[in-house]
């Protein structure tokens, strides 16, 4: 037996659907107008929960780490000691040169005394689908939009993009679509384009020698290191070579960052 479909009767929008569409439109308009205020409220409630989660994660790692294989731990310990020995000597050299650099600038009348604020990372990629971090300091602590954020010392990873009362959002230099001006080895201007996951890319003329490991700095009076060359692609017959870079720290592993608060 065949019956006639009643689909034709469904063409009118039902009152329920109309009400739903109106509610969605109101929510989107309200979101556009009061997004920051609403996000501020949500983060005020959420930041203690995420802080507790992070502390619990650290505690459980320590607890379960005790069950790891002794041989594996001894091997890891040996490798870490070797890495520490080579890094310590490099760090002494770096600290000496950095102090000398600042001292020379101080003699020329450029003193940089911006306060540095330590912040815990509440959420990081891949927990956040975009190239951003949430940190546990906000406008109450003096953080402002545009402040630079470093993983440690002068290794910068991003800038504050949104500030709430108790939290702030950091947009990483490597976030997709972000562009920044940098100086390759502190000399060659280079436009860096974020590719996500801690990677960036740029192009320089073929005549300029670029090698893996070259640093890229922000154009500034202080040495602000933002990336290191990880690969160079030089296609035959092209006048530009592609340079691929990575930010100094893996954003997926950042637990703490330093916010460099600009002076007024």
């Amino acid at each position, binding site marked *: *037996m065949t*019956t006639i479909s009643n689909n034709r009767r469904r063409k009118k929008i039902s009152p329920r659907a109309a009400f739903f569409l109106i509610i969605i439109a109101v*929510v989107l308009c309200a979101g556009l107008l009061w997004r920051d205020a609403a996000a501020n409220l949500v983060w005020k409630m959420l930041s203690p929960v995420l802080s507790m989660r992070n502390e619990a994660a650290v505690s459980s790692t320590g607890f379960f780490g005790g069950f790891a294989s002794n041989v594996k731990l001894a091997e890891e310990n040996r490798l870490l000691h070797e890495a520490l020995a080579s890094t310590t000597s490099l760090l002494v050299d770096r600290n000496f040169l950095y102090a000398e650099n600042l001292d020379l600038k101080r003699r020329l009348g450029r003193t940089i005394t911006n306060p540095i604020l330590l912040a815990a990372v509440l959420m*990081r990629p891949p927990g956040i689908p975009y190239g*951003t971090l949430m940190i546990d300091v906000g406008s109450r602590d003096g953080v402002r939009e545009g402040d630079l954020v470093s993983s440690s010392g002068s290794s910068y990873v991003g800038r504050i993009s949104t500030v709430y009362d108790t939290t702030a959002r950091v947009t990483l230099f490597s976030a997709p679509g972000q562009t920044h001006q940098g100086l390759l080895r502190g000399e060659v201007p280079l436009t860096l384009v974020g590719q996500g996951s801690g990677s960036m890319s740029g192009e320089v003329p073929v005549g300029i020698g670029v090698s893996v490991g070259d640093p890229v700095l922000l154009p500034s009076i202080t040495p602000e290191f933002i990336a290191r060359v990880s690969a160079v692609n030089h296609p035959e017959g092209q006048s530009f070579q592609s340079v691929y870079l990575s930010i100094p720290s893996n954003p997926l592993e950042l637990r703490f960052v330093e916010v460099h608060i600009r002076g007024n």
Partner: protein
Amino acid sequence: MERFNLLIIIISIAFIGAGLLFSFWPLVLAGIALLVLYGHTAFGVSAALLFDLIYGEPTGVLAFLYFPFILFALLCVVLRIVALRVILPRGDLGTL
């Protein structure tokens, strides 16, 4: 049916909570999709709005989306409507 709806809501909330606690946003999307596709549209859109506030705006080429989780929830609403009106009635042999 009431029990089934309750089960769907509990599973969705578990997905969303796990996505937040274990820092794995695809679980959040799965929870929202589950809520909306099973007809709990208001809950699903509310959860989407909450996560748009938590995660912020996208960067790069997707920046124009502005509310990507809400748009995803609306896409699920459209999918549900299409499924109910076009795909599912075809399975009913008594109706043309």
